[in-house]
């Protein structure tokens, strides 16, 4: 990755932006991974916007699409934690 690009990403990912900072995701295990892995490309309101209708498999498919089609810098262990967070906090509960 080019240094300039990296610097820009850090700037964009910083939580100090005026209106993006108003986005409040639910607390829970994996939130830090979500913030680190997802916010380089898009604001995190995308998550709340797409809720609540995705199952665990639905969120898994979204995260995999971000990694495979869009090149999100998320490795497998990080992806697992992100998927767990999204399905626990913004997913359709599994049928018991």
């Amino acid at each position, binding site marked *: *990755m*080019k240094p*300039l*690009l990296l610097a*820009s*990403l850090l*700037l*964009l990912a910083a939580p100090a*932006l*005026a*209106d*993006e900072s*108003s*986005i409040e995701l639910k607390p829970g295990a994996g939130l830090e991974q979500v913030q680190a892995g997802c916010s*380089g*490309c*898009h*604001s995190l*309101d*995308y998550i*709340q*916007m*797409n*809720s*609540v*209708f*995705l199952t665990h498999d*639905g969120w898994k498919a*979204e995260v995999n699409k971000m990694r495979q*089609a*869009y*090149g*999100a*810098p998320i490795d497998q262990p990080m992806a697992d934690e992100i998927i767990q967070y999204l399905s626990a906090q*913004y997913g359709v509960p599994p049928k018991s």
Partner: protein
Amino acid sequence: MRRRSVLTGLGAGAALIGARISARAASPMDLSPLLPEGTRAEAIMDALPGKQPLIKLAFRPPNYETPIDAFAEAITPNDRFFVRYHLAGIPDIADLEKAWSVKIGGDAANKPLEVSLDELQRQFPVVEVEAVNQCSGCRRGLFSPHVPGVQWGYGAMGSAVWRGVRLKDVLARAGVRAGAVEVAFGGADGPVMEGTPDFAKSLPLEKAMDESTIIAFAMNGAKLPHLNGLPIRLIVPGWTGTYWMKHLNEINILSKPFDGFWMQKSYRIPKGMFPVDLPFTTQAEEKTVPITEMVVNSVIGNVPDGSRQPAAGFTIQGVAWDRGHGIKQVEVSTDGGANWKPASLREDHGKYAFRAWRFETGKLQPGAATVMARATSNAGETQAAQLKPNPAGYQNNVPQKIAITLA
């Protein structure tokens, strides 16, 4: 993509976001009850620079829709026109207002060249077309069951008078070789990650050569707003907004189908599900084809969901549009679809534009009522009674059902 603006645009973009004035309470939001609950919770009214407050669905990349009350009239004002970006690398105004040019090349161009904005405006016949720009995913948020993506309601669209030059005139200067099949387009916006495919699209040669397909440098008599494509964008009347490349700076005439991600992996619909006049054969696969022509549709603009209206009677106003045949009829129901009466079509702005309409209800029974509208095109196509499910949530033209109380 020609990347010159993107890297510098990132930092400036962040500054621009910081300077935004939030206007949450400036005007009421009329969000459809069909939207996901999470969407309804996070959407706010927010004013981007140069814009009136729009419905913010996502801050970055900016995805903002036009409030529904704009659709009582045929023309959508520039400062209320929706904003849609896939990728967050958006050049700032200073970069876009510098000397601009578009490169025209590709393996089926006789003599590749670069045409400046000034040359575009002076050396080609200037034409105008009034046309609807509707995002492919408009009304995705109203799908049942919901599908992932930007959860648009009714307002990912607008209609404007676009002024510019015919694409075919510009292509002729580069020389279209025999054997050309598609023309591909790139803009100055782009991804922020190296692994993200740049946004680029293509048209079949026949659509590119259509009289109405233009490169626009003005919208409703003013220059294009920053976030609607400044300084030039492609106008593809009848086709969904995905082809209307913003910040246009690259055109390639191709002898083979364009193999970009945004053609081959996204913006696709099941083959044969929706009517088209011009099949995009070079991009067709066994089961899917690119989304191209819009479906006939209408919207009611002046009756908020859940509002009280006078039982003595009131006026219902809205717009209707289709894929370029023009609107033949709009019907309105005030009893949830049991009975339909014709609305009055207002002035005809052309076959690609919004057709505004109005309906006087006359005296109605007090109590709860459901208002609906449905349009029929000159091709005989009518809005779908039932949603046609497709994975990406496209082409939703099921009539609105607006619940009101008559008193």
